[in-house]
């Protein structure tokens, strides 16, 4: 066991059991999977992407490139989970990934032997011979070898939440800088949200042994946390990563239950926070970075800052004999911490020839061996066993089982780049610092390149004061008199030229220094090309560790400076985010809202089968008795209407109330035909175009009173038409007196159709005399009363093409109306019918719907050319363009099979008899088809060149997709009652 006997922020009273690759281990509450593995002496935890090299744990945070595991099992298996951020819970299970048959013996490691041929982008240059082998052989092989973990392939059993929050100040990161910012703003009374991705507040204070105003750093954290949590205006969110900066909105992911075996009942697993923050302070700290030398990827090599975290925060020693390799002061602090905790520090190798006397003295006091001006060129062992130190022209091999490296820190400035801001180079700290952050964001502490603890605290407080001042909120900066002064000096050093073995830049994607050399030789010199050619920085850690050394090596080869070389772009998310969290509750049946008509309950009582019609659920048909298939029901329903009477729920139509002096003039401008002449008590069919001359929608509009009209739109276009009319009324013609109100929800609407329709209505309407054919002819409309005083609107219309009425009543009366009609029609065998039957009858009648009004058709195409009036209307001018009036455009016609036994299918194309079925000979296509019980054969509507001029002609309707080739006759699209006798009867 490498668990140190004392210290650490773990709860030794709470032991926890877990398994890794099936083997049982134990750790403590407060551990991460990584710290627990280290405490159990597990070094080898993963295999790399390309060469399947053995890998260990490199970091102690979300930047981990190597220690990725499959966490949990079954449907909850999560590939590519970072052991360094997975909190230990009792019963945790994890498996290593991307290895076969086992982690210790991975057959794919033979890839390393071929490494000379597997350099950067090798796949673009090979696998082309023979041609067919790419897809048959090479690609499947590559795909199997690539990828990391395995998805569960089962539906995710957990659920997710999304929350909106609003605040004056969002503080990202709860290290000293963030805590100072939050406390300053919180005390000022501002609305503050403080997020940290860790499960503890404190940031580096949880690791480093420092003092603030005379007390321990951890005490400062505890006191600050207590005060923050007590403030009502401040919200603290731990386990919450701010991952993206969008316009006016920060996105953060809270891992609500990932530290539990499974979420408590009704607890979401994770929560997506969308935060509208007026100002933000980014205090995300800085990340230690690796140095590129031979074998720097071996298990046992880790970042110095991480080593210190394992030792100090988790009381887990990553090594028994440790060397430290660095170019900066901070790593010396890490070495001291390890030594002070009882870990043997065999050597402290610094690339610098000089360090501050203070550091030197501290090392001396501890009796540490220090090598100045030295480098490690290679590390050895499957798990680290030895290192080669180069100093003073000599190479020395030193046996160690742990190496802590530090190439200096890189500020965590990713979020400052999400609005295309570019970082700027700071030579003093050999790092990029934030350039232009997104509007409203300022940066404090190590994220801003300020590495001294006192500076971090002061800067955090000052940024909060500044941000609140912008908002007119006065705040007093938290004051700190003294804070531990740790050395912060650094001298740029990236790559050990003497390395003899593979030196890794991007650990996860196996990008080596040699790959960068190759990329440069082949002309991929821009950092963005370098990235894409070598995959540097494209792994799950997004180059948090590798980008800096990679571009520094490129800069060195090309002889350019680092700022001239530049960085690649940081994009959201800061760390990968579960897709489920971004979806929240909108999945399964709740993917989109379901709309129910006011007659839904009645239709269900009647045994309806429902179908999704856009957002609506509508009755499709009403099976009866022994009917086995849907078409049996539909044929019965059609016959019932044609021979007697049927009723259907048409409540889904859009209904728009128009009121005002100028409604007539307004409608004249939005419809192609005239409405201003429509008499009160009449309704008219209208066609609406878009301004580009194509049909937008059709429907009827009735005039109920001189200044009150009601329009119906198609179900599909209800919202679109309302928006369009609002545009016309508010923007185009504000001078017209028109008020628009959507009354779609208020009215239930039922259509009754069939020869007996009037007889039925007569028994339900309060004054039957008013619906006499004379008093109420076809295309009449009135406001009236039904069922003994219920307000109603009755329209004499029929989409089905029969004698018909549509009756609208207030929605709550809808089901009562349906029942009343059913009762009144019982003696005529009144039959409820559904969408499917309506579809049959409208085709029989040649009425067009979405299949025909698909946005590609003109009024002429539909045979409505004559409807267009002389004066202006929307779409008039553009509809006159040659392409739209071309006589060669396919026009609407009807079709029937020459052999009545043939079936027609929508989507078939028309070809002249004797002509080949090719694009050149394509005459048009079938839009809608049905088997017509009324005619005893199939019917179709479609667009064909020449349109109704071809009536009587025979064409092939070819349907190669389904092997169809049917001889059809072109007909009048109105099959049923072409003279309209039924309608008017």
């Amino acid at each position, binding site marked *: 066991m490498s668990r140190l006997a004392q210290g650490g922020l773990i709860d030794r009273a709470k032991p926890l059991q877990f398994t890794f690759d099936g083997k049982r281990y134990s750790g403590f509450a407060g551990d991460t999977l990584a710290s627990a593995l280290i405490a159990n002496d597990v070094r080898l935890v993963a295999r790399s992407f390309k060469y399947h090299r053995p890998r260990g744990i490199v970091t102690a945070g979300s930047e981990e490139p190597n220690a990725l595991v499959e966490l949990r099992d079954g449907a909850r298996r999560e590939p590519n989970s970072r052991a360094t951020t997975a909190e230990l819970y009792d019963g945790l299970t994890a498996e290593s990934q991307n290895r076969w048959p086992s982690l210790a013996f991975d057959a794919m490691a033979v890839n390393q032997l071929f490494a000379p041929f597997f350099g950067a982008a090798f796949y673009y240059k090979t696998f082309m011979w023979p041609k067919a082998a790419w897809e048959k052989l090479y690609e499947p092989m590559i795909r199997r070898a690539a990828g990391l973990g395995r998805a569960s392939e089962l539906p995710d059993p957990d659920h997710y939440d999304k929350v909106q929050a609003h605040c004056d100040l969002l503080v990202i990161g709860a290290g000293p800088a963030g805590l100072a910012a939050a406390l300053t703003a919180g005390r000022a009374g501002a609305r503050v949200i403080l997020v940290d991705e860790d499960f503890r507040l404190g940031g580096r204070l949880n690791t480093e042994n420092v003092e603030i105003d005379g007390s321990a750093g951890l005490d400062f954290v505890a006191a600050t946390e207590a005060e923050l949590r007590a403030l009502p205006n401040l919200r603290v969110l731990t386990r919450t990563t701010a991952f993206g900066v969008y316009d006016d909105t920060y996105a953060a992911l809270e891992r609500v239950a990932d530290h539990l075996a499974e979420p408590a009942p009704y607890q979401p697993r994770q929560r997506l926070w969308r935060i*509208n923050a007026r100002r933000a302070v980014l205090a995300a700290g800085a990340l230690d970075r690796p140095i590129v030398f031979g074998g720097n990827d071996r298990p046992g090599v880790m970042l110095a800052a991480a080593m210190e975290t394992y030792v100090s925060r988790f009381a887990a020693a990553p090594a028994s004999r440790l060397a430290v390799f660095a170019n900066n002061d901070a790593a010396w602090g890490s070495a001291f911490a390890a030594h002070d905790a009882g870990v043997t520090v065999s050597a402290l190798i610094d690339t610098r020839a000089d360090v501050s006397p203070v550091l030197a003295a501290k090392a001396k006091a501890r009796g540490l061996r220090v090598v100045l001006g030295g480098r490690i060129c290679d590390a050895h062992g499957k798990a680290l066993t030895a290192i080669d130190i180069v100093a003073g022209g000599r190479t020395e091999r030193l046996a160690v089982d742990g190496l802590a490296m530090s190439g200096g820190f890189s500020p965590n400035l990713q979020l400052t780049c999400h609005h295309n801001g570019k970082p700027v180079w700071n030579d003093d700290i050999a790092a990029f610092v934030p350039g232009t952050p997104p509007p409203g964001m300022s940066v404090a502490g190590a994220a801003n390149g300020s590495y001294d603890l006192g500076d971090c605290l002061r800067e955090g407080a000052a940024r909060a004061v500044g941000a609140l001042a912008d908002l007119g909120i006065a705040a007093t900066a938290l004051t700190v008199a003294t804070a531990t002064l740790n050395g912060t000096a650094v001298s740029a050093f990236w790559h050990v030229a003497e390395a003899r073995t593979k030196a890794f830049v991007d650990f996860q994607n196996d990008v080596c220094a040699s790959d960068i050399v190759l990329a440069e030789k082949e002309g991929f010199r821009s950092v963005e090309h370098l990235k894409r050619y070598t995959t540097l920085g494209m792994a799950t850690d997004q180059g948090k560790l590798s980008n800096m050394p990679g571009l520094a090596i490129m800069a060195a080869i090309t002889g350019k400076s680092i700022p001239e070389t530049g960085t690649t772009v940081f994009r959201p998310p800061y760390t990968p985010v579960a897709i489920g969290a971004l979806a929240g509750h909108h999945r399964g049946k709740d993917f989109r809202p379901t709309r129910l008509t006011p007659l839904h309950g009645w239709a269900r009582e009647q045994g309806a089968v429902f179908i999704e019609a856009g957002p609506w659920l509508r009755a499709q048909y009403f099976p009866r008795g022994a009917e086995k298939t849907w078409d049996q029901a539909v044929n019965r329903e059609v016959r019932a209407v044609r021979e007697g009477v049927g009723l259907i729920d048409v409540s889904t139509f859009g209904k728009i109330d128009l009121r005002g002096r100028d409604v007539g003039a307004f409608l004249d401008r939005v419809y192609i035909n005239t409405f201003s002449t429509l008499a009160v008590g009449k309704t008219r069919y209208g066609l609406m175009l878009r301004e580009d001359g194509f049909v937008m929608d059709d429907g009827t509009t009735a005039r109920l009173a001189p200044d009150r009209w009601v329009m119906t739109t198609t179900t599909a276009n209800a919202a679109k038409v309302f*928006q369009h009319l609002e545009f016309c009324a*508010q*923007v185009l013609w504000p001078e017209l007196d028109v008020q628009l109100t959507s009354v779609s929800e208020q009215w239930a609407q039922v259509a009754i159709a069939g020869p007996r329709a009037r007889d039925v209505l007569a028994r339900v309407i309060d004054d039957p005399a008013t619906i006499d054919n004379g008093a109420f002819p076809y295309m009449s409309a009135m406001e009236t009363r039904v069922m003994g005083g219920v307000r109603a609107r009755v329209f004499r219309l029929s989409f089905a093409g029969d004698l018909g009425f549509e009756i609208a009543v207030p929605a709550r009366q809808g089901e009562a109306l349906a029942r009343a009609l059913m009762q009144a029609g019982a003696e005529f065998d009144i039959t409820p019918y559904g969408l499917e039957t309506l579809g049959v009858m409208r085709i029989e009648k040649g009425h067009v719907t979405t299949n025909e009004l698909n946005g590609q058709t003109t009024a002429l195409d539909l045979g409505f050319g004559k409807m267009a009036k002389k004066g202006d209307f929307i779409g008039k*001018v553009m509809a006159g363009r040659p392409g739209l009036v071309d006589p060669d455009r396919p026009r609407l016609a009807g079709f029937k099979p020459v052999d009545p036994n043939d079936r027609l299918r929508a989507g078939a194309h028309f070809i002249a008899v004797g002509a080949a079925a090719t694009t050149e000979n394509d005459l048009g296509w079938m839009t809608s088809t049905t088997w017509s019980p009324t005619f005893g054969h199939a019917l179709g509507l479609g667009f064909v060149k020449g349109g109704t001029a071809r009536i009587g002609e025979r064409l092939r309707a070819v349907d190669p997709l389904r092997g169809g080739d049917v001889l059809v006759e072109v007909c009048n699209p109105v099959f049923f009652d072409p003279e309209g006798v039924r309608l008017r009867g």
Partner: protein
Amino acid sequence: MLITCPYCGARDAHEFTYLGDAELIDRPDPAGPEAEAAFHAHVYLRDNPAGPHRELWYHGSGCRQWLTVTRDTRTHAIASVVAAARPEVAR
């Protein structure tokens, strides 16, 4: 992206529907001499600038006003939001 609707206040852009360049407000005179050319330009041709852009948004999930928003297409920064109706006839 927040759009500060003059009636509703700051609202997320997902409550709005975008239409395009605010020149769509100025429908040409259909009886004008070059009506077809004018409509062609009105319906189809756009400046599509990289910079400030006057554009139409409909607050369909709010107050149902059509708004003219001046927004920089390089940064998404919004300089102004006003009702799209011409002021002389607006409410």
